């Protein structure tokens, strides 16, 4: 079980998504850039040209390296590109949530939480 110390500093949401998803969520005021000289952003804008390695690195940074992130949001079609990482991710913090994007509606078949459900019922 996670202890109090594990999550008391986790105050930011992080997003990996396409430009529109990020714009929308930043409009809600979740965007954060840390003080210089780090200037670490809590979001990654992904387009067709973005390398899978870059997505994986961002996922790694948000879930493992940074200790101030409580929820990681990721567009489902981008999560598909690093599916093995998402499916093997078991940490309690941060929580990873897949969200729909403009061009790719939410598919429950792919959702990592619902995949967990199927595993529990032995499918």
């Amino acid at each position, binding site marked *: 079980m996670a202890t109090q110390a594990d999550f008391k500093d986790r105050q930011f949401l992080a997003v990996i998504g396409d430009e529109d998803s990020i714009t929308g969520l930043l409009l809600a005021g979740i965007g954060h850039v840390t003080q210089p000289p780090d200037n670490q952003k809590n979001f990654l804008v992904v387009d067709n040209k973005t390398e899978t390695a870059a997505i994986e690195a961002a996922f790694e940074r948000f879930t493992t390296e940074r200790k101030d992130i409580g929820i990681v949001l990721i567009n489902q079609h981008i999560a598909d590109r690093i599916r093995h990482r998402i499916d093997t991710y078991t940490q309690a913090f941060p929580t990873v949530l897949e969200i*729909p994007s403009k061009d790719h509606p939410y598919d429950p078949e792919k959702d990592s939480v619902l995949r967990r459900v199927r595993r529990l019922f032995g499918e």
Partner: protein
Amino acid sequence: MSAETETIDALLERYLALLDTYTQLRASLNALQSAMYQHLARANFSADRGIRYYGQDYYDERMQASRRISIGGGSEATTSPVLFTVKAPEPVTEARTTNDGRGKDAEGKEATLEKERDPKEETERDPKEETEKDSSSSSSPSQPATTKTTDEKKKPKSTDPLRWFGILTPLPLRQAQSSAISAVEDIIPRLASVSAEMASVELEVRRARKRRAKAEKEKEKKKVAELEKQIGGLEVNKNEEKQVIGLTS
């Protein structure tokens, strides 16, 4: 039915209720997100000249989060092991805390940078810098007092990310913002909490199943041992019988 099976059933029942909540929250998130995308598309369609696209070109490079998570739970009052909440702090206190959290060196640096900026940029700055300017302006008497008061008036508004895109933003963009805010403040933290609770119930179910399997194995072992004993006894009886038969013949 064994006690273990009953606990597993109870856990699964709770799990299915959580799954139902999760699915409902998912549906609301989908609705909010698609509304947000539609509003955003409409804002882009009717964009004024000069604005190419409401996107990353306009993001403030020094943005500070105005909506933050607080994680609680684990108490007896809630069934959930973790409870996520996302809230926007009070604008005034926020300006104060961000200002306090900053080193003095950075402040001095900002203040010198401040002087080089043109007045047009001033409208788009975040409140932290404005408060810093306040402190610097109060220390230098050459600055007129009126700028200080106008800066103070702007303070709560200027954290709004809408300002990145200009002062008079189109209605669809504001609608996109309100959809995003309800997704971030309401649905996403609840989804995260439910997902965390589901994970903890999954763990309990797996543990209970293991315990049940262990108990069944031990039962089986006992049964086998008993059977073996009985068979052993039978063999002894047979031997005795043989001996008796041998004696009589």
